[in-house]
Structure formats: structure tokens, C-alpha cells
């Protein structure tokens, strides 16, 4: 099972918390809105990604767990 991140661009208000907590995957554009690296979140970062999603003040960072097993 792998996890992917997604931003709800309507609720996102450019607090930038996610990029602070997960700089490996998330960078900010010139206006402060997150740009996500493509592809699933690397496994070692999964728990950090979940924490970043939970810390978003507007809950705009979404975790999508893709069900199909790998390996």
C-alpha cells in the first residue's frame, strides 16, 4: 500500500505548514502555495506526510491511500 498527497486548491490558504514539515516532497511557489513532487510519497516519509496533512490549518492537504498491494 502506498500513499499519495493531494492539495485541495480551494481550501488551501498558503500557510506553508506542509512545506515546513515535509520539505522532501513539498515546495512552495512564489505566492506560497504548495507544489507537490509527483508520484507516491516514499515509504519512510509516510508517517511524516500524515502528520503534515493533519497539521494543515485548513485541512487542504489530503492523503490518498492507494489500495493495491505492492510486493
Amino acid at each position, binding site marked *: 500500500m502506498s500513499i499519495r498527497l493531494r492539495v*485541495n486548491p*480551494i481550501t488551501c490558504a498558503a500557510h506553508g505548514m506542509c512545506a515546513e514539515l515535509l520539505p522532501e516532497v513539498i515546495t512552495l511557489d512564489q505566492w506560497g502555495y504548495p507544489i507537490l513532487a509527483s508520484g507516491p510519497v516514499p515509504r519512510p516519509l509516510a508517517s511524516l506526510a500524515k502528520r503534515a496533512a493533519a497539521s494543515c490549518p485548513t485541512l487542504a492537504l489530503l492523503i490518498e491511500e492507494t489500495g493495491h498491494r505492492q510486493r
Partner: protein
Amino acid sequence: MVSRQLLPVPAIPPGQPALRRLPRLLAGLRYDRPASLADHERCHGPIPLHRPGRPARPARLIEVVERSGLTGRGGAGFPTGRKMRSVASRRGPAVVIANGAEGEPASGKDRLLLTRLPHLVLDGISLAAQAVGAREAHLVVHRQDGWLRDRLQAAADARYEAGTDPVPIQVTGIPGRYVSSEQTAVAAFLGGGPGKPAFTPPRLDERGLRGRPTLENNVETLAHLALIARYGDGWFRSIGLPSATGSALVTVGGTVGRPGIYEIELGTRIGDVLMLAGGPTEQPQAVLVGGYFGGWMPAEHAWKLPLSQPTLRAAGGAMGAGILIALPVTSCGLAETARVVRYLAEETAGQCGPCVFGLPALADALADLAYHGGRGRALEQIGRLLPVIEGRGACRHPDGATQLVRSALRTFAEDARRHDLRGACYGLRREPLLPVPGDDERDWDWT
């Protein structure tokens, strides 16, 4: 300015069955007045709905539509049959929404259908409603067109009272903003909210208007459906390409002799469509294909290209709502694009950061390039902005703008370099060509 003229359509003798070739949708078009229900039935026969007493097999229409290959004519080009099947397979009563709020300023086809051939659209709504098991049906138009809304509502009420339609059709005027006719924005407005696009998923066919499975179709798509239900999928497929069947309405404008709305066989070469519209009145340099969600193509390249969603996509364009605008060599394609991108930036719903901040920045950079020249830096600036904007909105509005800009930079590449280094060109002396609504004609309100 030449007024819009309609394709000359021969009168159809009463009682004539399915027409083999074109016109199809426009077969019942009259010069003197909008086609009444009697006119419409004389041309195409009564609506082929399943009536009580006869075995009801609404699923059959979905099969026929799937086999016909009909795709959405609003811009996205999604297979209509697949959409209907998906809505029909969900639990609970469904909703049908017919989208007649044409957002593209350069398009006039939906308005032509609604003003001149309303019963074709109303037939399509009823047939779709029966096929997916809907108990609620909506038709939306721009609310600036109050008279059109009233006229369509009166026609729909008369049909329902006469027992023609199985469900009442509610006609609603929605905000006239560019993105308010986007499908999730329409559902949002009908649900009582502001007419702004929503974040998906859930998709409309899963959870649309007030949580119900919702089938939303462009009015031209539904008009085709009304004919497919009568004449069958084989008839529909008998013209067009294997990958893009049937006919489509296109709005032709720019430097052509007879700008207007034409019904064409899909796969007709763009040059032939422009010739149908009177041919070029000046040497064309480029064609805007698909409208403001489409893109520019060099005229010599566009001329031979078959007009259809798959062929245009393969050539890096889009069919959009079927718009063709020929740009003369004496116009400046960059200035035209800059005006449109400014308009698109002003039409943001104001919801997503990359669109709210990105589109005005893009419009500024493009205006610099088109009107002032960029001292060699404007192109680089635009190149940096595009990837930051793309794919980062809840709807495709920002992507439409970036696609248009990319196509302009490709098509007018030589021009763009010259503008960047040396400043504006002589094309700026010409009157603007692409239609952009004036500030006083715009509807600024969302609710």
C-alpha cells in the same frame, strides 16, 4: 462588422424521414421564427419516449448512444453513453442538467439551438432523463438572457402539461461568468451556492446536485441525442470519422466572408469549413481552434487538418466548443492573446492561489511582450510562469489559459522573439479581432 449569418438551410418537405446527410441538427431551422413544437414534429416526428403500457426499456437508449459514438459537445468531449451508463448505475433518483450557458465569448452554437430549435434540446433532456431514471431536470442559460429563460420555461411548461415530457424541466439563469458554466459550478449554483467550480472528486455522476447522481450535458449533445433516439446509432455514425462520429456545430469568425454557425461533418478539413463560411477575406496567418480553451495553429498547418477531437488532440490542439477564428496577417496574434488572457485572469473564480495570482502575472507578462516589448526578458518570464500555473487549480480554467499562451508562443514564435527584443509590431494598429465582453456587459456577481 459583419453580422452573424446562418447557414442557408433548404426547407424540409413535411413528413420526410431521417435525413441522410447534412443538415441534421439544423434541418428544422426556419428563417422567420423559432421552430414551434409543431414545426419540430413535422421535421423529425414525435419524441420517441417509452409510454406507460408499453414495456419500458430505458436502458436501450443508453446502448444506442454508446454505439453511436456521440461525445460531449461542450468542450471536454467525453463519451456521452458512458456518462449516462455511469449515472444510471448509481443508487437513487438521478438529476439531469442541460448546460446552455455558453461561456465562450466567441461561441454562438448553443444560443442558436436554444433560440431557434428549442424543442430539439427539450426532447434530448426528456430522453436523457428517462434513460437514467431522473425525476428532476434542469436547463441552465445565462441569467442576462432573462427573455430566453422565460421563453424556454414557457415552452417546457407547455410540453409537460401536454404530456410530452415525463419530468418537468426547470429553466434557470446562472451567473454569466466564464467559469460559472463549468459543470461543477452549474451544479453548485443550482444547489443554492455561488456559481463557482468545485473540488473533485466526488464527480457529478457519483454525487452531484444535492448529492444525487447527476448527468450534465451540453445542449448540443442533447440535441444530437434527440436525433439518435429517432434515427438510430447507425444513422449517426454514417457520417464523420470512425473515431469522431456524426456532425457538430461550429462557430466560424475572424477574417472570413460569412462568419456564423455551421453544421459540419466531423473530420471536415478546417480549410473546407472556413471556405464554407465564405473563405478568407484577407490572407490568414493563423487559426484559433477550439476557442479560449483551445489554441492557435499556423494557417497552412490548420488548413489541411481534419476538424475533430482526436485529430486536433494529436496535433496538439483541442476541439473545445467548436470555434474557428481566422486571424489575418495584419493582426498581432500576441496582442490578441494578451487581451484574452487578461479577460481570463479577470474571470477567475478567486478560489485557487495559482489561478488568482498566476493568471494576472501571466497576463501582465504577456501584455509586456505584446505592447511594450520585454527588453529580451518577457519570454523567459512567461516560460517560468506557465509550469507554476498548470494543473494546480480545482477546475481547468488556469490550464486553459496556459494552453492558449503556449500555442501562441509556438504559432507566433518568430513574432514573439521580435516583440521581446524590439517592442510592439504594426499589428497593434488593427482593431481587436477576438471577442471579449466589455466591462459593462459582464456579470460580476457569483450568487
